[in-house]
């Protein structure tokens, strides 16, 4: 890894509107970002902001300090180009947020999407189906109470989720949450554990089945929700 790190050279390419800053390794661009002029209004005054975007590093070259090197070079170039400030869009949940903080970036505005479930049934089946498709052994009858919608009676079997037409006589598990909580879980705005601790999700029924379901939810990757 340290050999790789030594080989990567950080370069700057001024082509058109965007200036690209990138680290090259083995003749390939493995980590890069871009910046361009983005005038920013403060009251009636306008300041010369460098808008930074396209920050990315190839997966096999991550955790080698490359993005830090690229960012340091970019910030020096931004200052030399005559910008007074710089801005970028990101999410607080991603690792890069810490990198930006190191370079003096501060959260200025946080976007909060407000959501509405238009088709709770289709959405719930899609989300639960995605979570449980790997677990073909799991068989359960569950009720999903998505406030303010009607409760959904679901059958989980062979990695598939289907809606039961009638309320089953026996329910193994009941999950209760608001519609927007299911959206937040699906988009990974909140983790399942966070939702449980803050009582956004409540449950009753078979503990073993619940733990199995929870284990599936904890194993998921990270997705950024936004426009």
């Amino acid at each position, binding site marked *: 890894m340290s050999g790789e790190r030594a080989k990567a050279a950080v370069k700057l390419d001024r082509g058109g509107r965007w200036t690209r800053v990138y680290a090259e390794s083995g003749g390939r661009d493995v980590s890069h970002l871009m910046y361009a002029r983005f005038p920013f209004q*403060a009251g009636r005054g306008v300041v010369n902001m*460098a808008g930074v975007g396209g920050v990315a590093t190839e997966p096999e070259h991550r955790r080698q300090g490359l993005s830090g090197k690229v960012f340091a070079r970019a910030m020096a170039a931004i200052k030399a180009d005559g910008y007074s400030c710089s801005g970028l869009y990101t999410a607080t949940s991603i690792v890069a947020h810490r990198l930006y903080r190191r370079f003096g970036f501060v959260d200025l505005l946080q976007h909060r999407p407000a*959501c509405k479930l238009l088709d709770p049934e289709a959405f719930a089946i899609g989300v639960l189906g995605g979570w449980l498709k790997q677990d073909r052994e799991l068989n359960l009858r569950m009720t999903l109470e998505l406030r303010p919608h009607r409760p959904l009676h679901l059958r989980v079997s062979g990695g598939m989720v289907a809606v039961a037409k009638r309320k089953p006589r026996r329910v193994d598990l009941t999950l209760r949450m608001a519609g927007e*909580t299911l959206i937040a879980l699906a988009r990974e705005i909140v983790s399942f554990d966070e939702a449980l601790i803050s009582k956004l999700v409540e449950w009753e029924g078979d503990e073993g089945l619940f733990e199995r379901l929870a284990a599936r939810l904890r194993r998921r990757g990270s997705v950024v929700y936004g426009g």
Partner: protein
Amino acid sequence: MGAEMGSRPRGALALRSFREGDQVAIARLFNQYLSGFAGPRPMTPEAWRRQFRRRSWNGPSVDEDRDCVRVAERGGEVVGYAVTDYRPFEENTAAIVQELCVAGDRADEVAAALLEDAERRARQRGRQVLAVQLSPDDGLAERVAERLGFRSPGKDAGVFMAAVVDLARLLKELEQELSRRLAQSECAGWTGTLRLRSQGQTGWLRIRAGRVSAPRSPKAARADITAEVHPDALPLLVFGRCSVRWAYLQDMLSVEAADRGEALRLLDALFPRLPIYLPRAQWW
């Protein structure tokens, strides 16, 4: 959302899809709303049209889909518009209202009509979820969205970050705006030199006869007021995201001056808290 309008068009509210030429009224609404805010630069009709020509990662294309921009008219005048992305994710299960801008004295009604229209269209297209991007200072949009059953999932998602890379240059760019703010304050008659310092950066403000100038290196490097700002508070302070009092009470601002109260009032006048509006689609 909620630009002030001089005239008050009367008549029934009508909604329709984007038509070539609407960009003039849209840019006017957007710019009216922006004045007094921190956010993107005022938009020209041409720039607005260019932005929605091709679909990009952060916005839809009106050339591909006229319905993604819906316009509200009353008495033949455009009083609002909404930009909706009907396929923000690969799975095509959601739609997002990215921008909602309305004007006039019945702004709530226009905003509600545009949101209800977006919901109807999202349902017609089989979308399971409709989201609205809300800015923290957009109280009207938040109120209307909540009334229509939209709820925040709890945590913030996208975040806009900023850094000050050259404080002296930034103050130079803001000279006129700072003079304007000073003129409207109780400190309009203050005369002297103010030094702002933050982690290796220094900026000077000279105030004479109600005018603010920001010399790179003043002739006499003596300041009547020296304000030391914590680096975490500097972007917040200069872009109006925190008040001077808040920074002071949080120990993120210290002031050296003969009269500290007067110094804080002056800083308050120069760096007031500003509402911010930055629709995600306007970035880049």
